[in-house]
């Protein structure tokens, strides 16, 4: 098989694609393949990594035109088509580069963020959006001596959203983020919703108000790419839908949104 990798260096200005022929071994991930290239063929290849076990969120990239974690994506599942995924279209996932998906794996940087070098993108915009959601626990009462109690069912509901690893795969899969840099994106909204539904916080709408704008809840067009690509099963599109319904119900939808 051939790993076709996006290459970019500031001093060379124009990006290019390099093809590396590799022997596939059973269980080889895209991250493993990138390490093999770095170790055997070209030690200048730049990509981020940390846990290699799909828990740290470092290695999201565009693999065969789908945002995925490189460590979790098996080469064999790409070649045999079993991990193929349909996504609502946006410019970066159009077939701009010729490649044969049955023999080649195409690896490119995560879309919608500036490329610094090769597969390394600048995450500043993604984390800036996260920060505007004021992601910090604000309990409704003063702390008791012991833990605050919680219903196990409330915890299960929260876990859907606390599982987010902020890898930005959803951000790179969102057709709205493709068009609008101001849109905070699915991960930031899912994070905000996690705090909104935390029963230890106030039950009012103060959390929802933080993103009650066109660049927040109302920017979403429900393509649901975010929920499809999430490696941890987080459903940002459900959070956004629920938040909008809640705002609608209480008549707090800002004017001119739909």
């Amino acid at each position, binding site marked *: 098989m051939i790993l076709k990798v996006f290459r970019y260096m500031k001093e060379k200005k124009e990006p290019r694609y390099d093809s590396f022929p590799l022997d596939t071994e059973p269980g080889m991930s895209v991250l493993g393949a990138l390490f093999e290239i770095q170790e055997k063929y070209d030690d200048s290849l730049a990509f981020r990594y*940390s*846990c290699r076990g799909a828990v740290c969120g470092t290695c999201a990239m565009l693999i065969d035109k789908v945002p995925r974690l490189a460590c979790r994506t098996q080469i064999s599942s790409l070649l045999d088509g079993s991990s193929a995924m349909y996504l609502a279209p946006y410019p970066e996932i159009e077939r701009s580069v010729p490649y044969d998906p049955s023999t080649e794996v195409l690896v490119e940087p995560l879309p919608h963020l500036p490329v610094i070098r090769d597969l390394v993108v600048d995450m500043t915009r993604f984390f800036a959006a996260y920060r505007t959601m004021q992601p910090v626990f604000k309990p409704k009462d003063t702390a008791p001596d012991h833990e605050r109690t919680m219903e196990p069912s409330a915890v299960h509901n929260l876990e859907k959203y606390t599982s987010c690893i902020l890898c930005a795969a959803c951000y790179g899969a969102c057709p709205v983020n493709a068009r609008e840099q101001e849109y905070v994106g699915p991960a930031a909204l899912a994070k905000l919703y996690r705090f909104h539904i935390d029963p230890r916080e106030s039950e009012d709408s103060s959390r929802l108000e933080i993103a009650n704008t066109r660049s927040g809840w109302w920017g979403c067009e429900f393509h649901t790419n975010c929920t499809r690509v999430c490696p941890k099963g987080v459903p940002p599109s459900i959070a956004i839908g629920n938040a909008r319904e809640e705002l609608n119900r209480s008549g707090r939808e800002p004017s001119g949104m739909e």
Partner: protein
Amino acid sequence: MVADQQSIHIFDVLIIGGGLTGLRAALEIAAAGRAVAIVSKVHPLRSHSVAAQGGINASLGNNAAAGQDSWNAHAFDTVKGSDYLADQDAVELMCRMAPNAVIELEHLGTVFSRQADGKIAQRPFGGAGFPRTCYAADRTGHNILNTLYEQVLHRNVRVFEEYFVTTLATGGGRCIGCTALNVSDGDLHGFLAPATMLATGGFGRIYSRSTNALINTGEGASMAMRAGVALKDMEFVQFHPTSLFGTNILITEGARGEGGILLNRNGERFMERYAPVSKDLAPRDVVARAIHQEIGAGRGFDGGYVHLDLRHLGEELIAERLPGIRQIAIDFAGVDPVNEPVPVQPAQHYSMGGIAVDITGATTLPGLYAAGESACVSVHGANRLGGNSLLETVVFGLMTAGTIIRDLSVAGLPKDANSSILDAIRHEQTKIDDFLARDGGEGMPELRNALKETMYDHFGIFRNEGLMKEGLGKILRLKERFHKASIEYKGLEFNFALQRALELEGMITLAEVVARGALARKETRGSHARTDYPSRDDVHFLAHTVAQLVNEKIVVAYEPVKIMTFPVKGREY
């Protein structure tokens, strides 16, 4: 680049590492109104703490049916688990503080799993007399790390992400900060602070089979050693019994805490033979050795693994309490634990040893502190109990922050600190320039892989003199080979080849410290199992190993263990 004032950053406190220990300390120091910065080679959320699965121990006693738990019982289990090598004053401190530490995390927003009455759920763990391990499904580290990161951001703590620290800077007999390479552009920066805290995690990646993140290369320990600080008990390396066969990704002990059992190829629950009482929930050193022996005796599966069977737990319980490892088994081994047993084998997991610190988190070098897995205080002794590492991060992160805040009222930077840090930058720049100018010789990946294989083959689960002497010889030759090896890419932006070469230099040093400590310790204790000395020898080795650089040579000596309420006894499970 010529060192100039623009690349010098001055803070009250510098924390190297942005995992749980570093974040907990930063939070405390920021709350005290001190200017604190975190310097980390990765974004804090990418730290290895995120991978901790099973939980955090505290004698909350929420599971009333299990009887009355106490910090004292927690301390006893920890000391016995450590094979009596832990310092009992530090263990007592940690176990006393544990309930408040966990409740504090809950108050900061961590979403712990709950029992029916709404209190934090607690599960049984290896070597523990009570269900004492508080958890957030099997993503406890991830949940706590996110909570602490949120709090640290809220306090506007400055974080230098993707800055690779190359050396600790000293002047006037104290640590004055560090130099760090900005990974994104290759510029060297100087950081000046009257207090520097190492929270860099473990060095598991000196081993070929490891559950650790790829970033766990132990820079904190190797830098501390070069700055003249001792490393303690480095030969005690924990092998986790259950890593996923193939990738060695962790499969939490919580899987056995919830009722999972280990089976050999004959379908035998072999732990009944090795630990008749605790069985699959014996401490990690005991279970790892048992699996290793089963495989060695031909009762493992081809390739060298055994089965972890969770099928009898049922889909509902697995989905609720072990969703993360279920996903890991599906993604990385193509096995759904609901339907099939999980193939597991032991792999390096934790560094019990580390930078020698006293109970306050201070090293012997004024201005330098350490906590968490990078340090050795020692609460884990010869073998750590599951659920105690997350606890150590928050308890000693907090304690060490308190020490630093107190010391800041009397400590300051020496007058010539500025020129000292500029000298340090120039020195590091020359070193990097010389390294980049080197061509030919072996490649770094070859050396790195050789080191990892050497450590696994010669300093693994079972050790003996001949094997280890041969291994030490290989390490010493690797040290020579490193000085002739080179990298091809000479650029400065995101030069991971350079970063990994700098990591390797420190890894070789740590490997030698592990090797010399292991050779000198002629006994079997906790994780250090010697076939040539199969018994514990309290007469000669109820002592901490301290290794120090003296004239560029590693010298091993011993220090007494603090024994308090728990007399040294046998260790049956």
